[in-house]
């Protein structure tokens, strides 16, 4: 177990090192002059040159990479040429918002997806199954930006049920920071007004972000349930007179969950990437929105930092999924 964990962590480190090379090269070979952009439309050549020197853009690429890597190893992601702010500080501000949205979305996709999958399998070929299959096909087929706009127009504007964007009601100050997740912090501090506001603001972006994952989980869960239900040991359990609820909960669900857990783990990384669009439409102040604002100004450091953060999360999620196999399936041994 520990050897396995050590090996996998080493692999994560190597993956991230490779990622730094890739994002650095891609950022720097893309045509663009960040110093000129940062200096402004009427900047003098002297101003442009000063900014280039200040941010080390006049140095060779290997030297720039070495400085960058040294900084990353010390937890320093450099400075944004566009805003002149420390990228590490910005990530600390924006990452909790994204993680809160992604965790909430994952929870939504996992709970609803598994529930829908079980229901679809349990009521196979009934109207409920057909309805849930329609939802799962729609979740994959409908573009997220369209769904986001439709939900804003219908749920937020037409029926005025939920807010159209942001993390909290505009006049409301964020709850005292403990985790950086507004919903959790509001719960922990007993700030019930903020709980309601944070929850209602989460619903629409989470629905949009979860739609493809919810669809995938539902389909996977349904297929695995149907596959497991037809296994001999389930038939045997039934023959032995075990209650149906026990059979489904103990023998079918647990075995059917394994591929679904893998899928949910993989969707985590995808969701982090997907926040770029959702955060832009719903004005969710997370790293996705931060990456968009930075990339249009050829501001490399924030873009590289966001990529690395997402890469790290993706790698760690995969590791957690691998470890969860052992919990769900005692036959799995880590060697």
């Amino acid at each position, binding site marked *: 177990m520990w050897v396995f964990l050590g090996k996998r962590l080493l692999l994560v480190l190597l993956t991230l090192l490779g990622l730094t090379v890739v994002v650095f090269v891609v950022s720097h070979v893309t045509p663009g002059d960040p110093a000129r952009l940062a200096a402004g439309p009427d*900047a003098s050549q002297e101003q442009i040159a000063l900014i280039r020197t200040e941010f080390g853009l006049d140095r060779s690429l290997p030297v720039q990479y070495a400085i960058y890597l040294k900084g990353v190893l010390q937890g320093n992601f450099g400075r944004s040429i566009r805003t002149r702010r420390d990228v590490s500080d910005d990530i600390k501000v924006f990452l909790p918002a994204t993680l809160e949205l992604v965790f909430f979305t994952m929870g939504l996709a996992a709970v609803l997806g598994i529930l829908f999958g079980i229901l679809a399998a349990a009521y196979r070929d009934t109207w409920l199954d057909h309805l849930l299959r329609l939802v799962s096909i729609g979740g994959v087929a409908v573009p997220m930006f369209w769904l986001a706009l439709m939900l804003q127009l219908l749920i937020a504007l037409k029926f005025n049920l939920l807010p159209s964007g942001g993390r909290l009601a505009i006049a409301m100050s964020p709850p005292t920071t403990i985790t950086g997740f507004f919903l959790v912090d509001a719960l922990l501090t007993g700030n019930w007004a903020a709980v309601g506001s944070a929850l209602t603001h989460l619903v629409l972006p989470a629905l949009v972000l979860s739609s493809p994952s919810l669809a995938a989980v539902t389909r996977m869960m349904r297929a695995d349930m149907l596959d497991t239900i037809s296994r001999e040991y389930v038939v045997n359990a039934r023959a032995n007179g075990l209650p149906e609820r026990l059979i489904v909960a103990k023998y079918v669900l647990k075995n059917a969950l394994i591929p679904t857990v893998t899928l949910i783990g993989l969707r985590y990384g995808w969701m982090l990437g997907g926040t770029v669009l959702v955060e832009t439409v719903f004005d969710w102040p997370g790293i996705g929105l931060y990456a968009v604002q930075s990339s249009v100004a050829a501001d490399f450091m924030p873009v590289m930092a966001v990529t690395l953060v997402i890469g790290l999360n993706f790698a760690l999620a995969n590791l957690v999924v691998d470890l969860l196999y052992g919990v769900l399936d005692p036959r799995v041994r880590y060697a």
Partner: protein
Amino acid sequence: MRTRWLPGILLLALAITALGIAPEAQAFQVRDGQKILIFGARQAVPNLDPHVKTDWSTRTIQQSVYDGLLKYEGNPPKLVPWLAESYSVSKDGMTYTFKIDKRAKFQTGEPVTAYDVKFSFQRIMDLKLGPAVLFMDIVDRESLQVPDIHTFQVSLKKPYAPFISTIPWLFIVSWKQVMANAVDNDYGQKWLMSNAAGSGPFKIRRWEQGNLYELEAVENYWKGWKSPKHIGGYIFKLIQESSSQKISLLKGEADLVEGLQPDDYEAVKTEKGVKIEEHPGVTNFAIKFNNQKGLTANQDIRKAISYAIDYDAFVKIYNGHAVLMEGPIPKTLKGHASKLPVYRTDLAKAKEHLAKAGHPNGGFTLEYVYVAGLEEERLIGLVLLDQLKKLNITLNIVALPWPQMVARGSKIETMPDMMAVFVTPQFFDPDAILSLQFHSGAWGRGYYSVAYYKNPKVDELIDKARVLKDWGQREKLYHEIQRLIVEDAPEVWGMLFNRRWAMRQHVKGFLFSPVHYTGEVDMYQLAIEE
């Protein structure tokens, strides 16, 4: 099992819906009897330092928390005394003396002194960022004098007639407050990113980076307020998407928005409780030719294209909410020469110039580059493509992300035949346009000079005009310069689109000034009256 799930699910759905139905923001908020306006804006303010950044969103808040010696107000913009109750210019036009208003005080309660003005000037010159471009060649440390605590004097290194027009963008900081918050000799840069050290009418109440900024009115603002119903503060909320801005305005989540699509302005203006402020701007659209390389280096080719364009299309793209440019300087800017022989659609003349250029039958390809995502520029490209087809010229339309487009324009060799560019003058003087776009000394600066235009006579006259004290003499030269430039056809002058803001009816006092950047709002003027 079936029946046990359903009540739970229904309860959850009801609970979420009930929370949603809880009273949502009806635009402005009321706090302690004060009305707090909600402004939905597309662009964040990542760095508020007045000596580092200048763009429309940043300047909206900078104007709120800082004062300048003078201020631009109204249309046409007038220079109104602000921190300086008066100023005088020496006979030779080289020394400017500003008398500081003795009532002026910072939000800390400290009086604003000439030392603060000097410090602010020095800080700009030392940092060499953002607004420094306005002063770098004109002023140095030795130019700045403080004869007494209420008098500030600046002696120019060389004559520069538009100097006074640049002064409103020099925001004054409290030197004591800035230096008290400086770390590692950073001149207070880190602190000033999200804090203010000014004397302006609003102070920062809440700063949520990348999300919203809340400012509250300084009740005993030293300059006083124009209306007793002035806003008690405002929340600058980042709303990136045009569609989201529209929804926020209609849903009652915002009082004022600035970034709707042209069609959306048409759609919301008929909604109850919504009004549109619309004013002719000074941001001009031009198709810049590469005047030094390729076929467009030939003046007759440039003229042929200038005559081929369908100018009505420029206005139609904005549903009529734009006016055509009539030369290099917008009509709304002083110094504009009327009755210039500008180009208008005339295919016969276009063919004439094509023949003069040695290409009577066309038969060549040109490249038109625009910013990916800017719909107006794409449509103009399509109109151009259609018109040039009539001359047997093929147009290659290329959409590039903004960074790549700026990179293409940074050298003559990489500059395409034509590039779509929007330009906003930074101060209200013809020099803000002519010296940065049509003087060969500006080549390689920023990206306003991507046409690489050079006419020695124009260079000479621009240099001459910017040092003359007498406006009458300057104006004559500017008229001559414009005629010379029009004759050379270095770019296609497009349109000045109207600036528009959509707002709730209860927002009063909106004061437009064309010298403001796109989207910029002078919050000091606003009131809420139901």
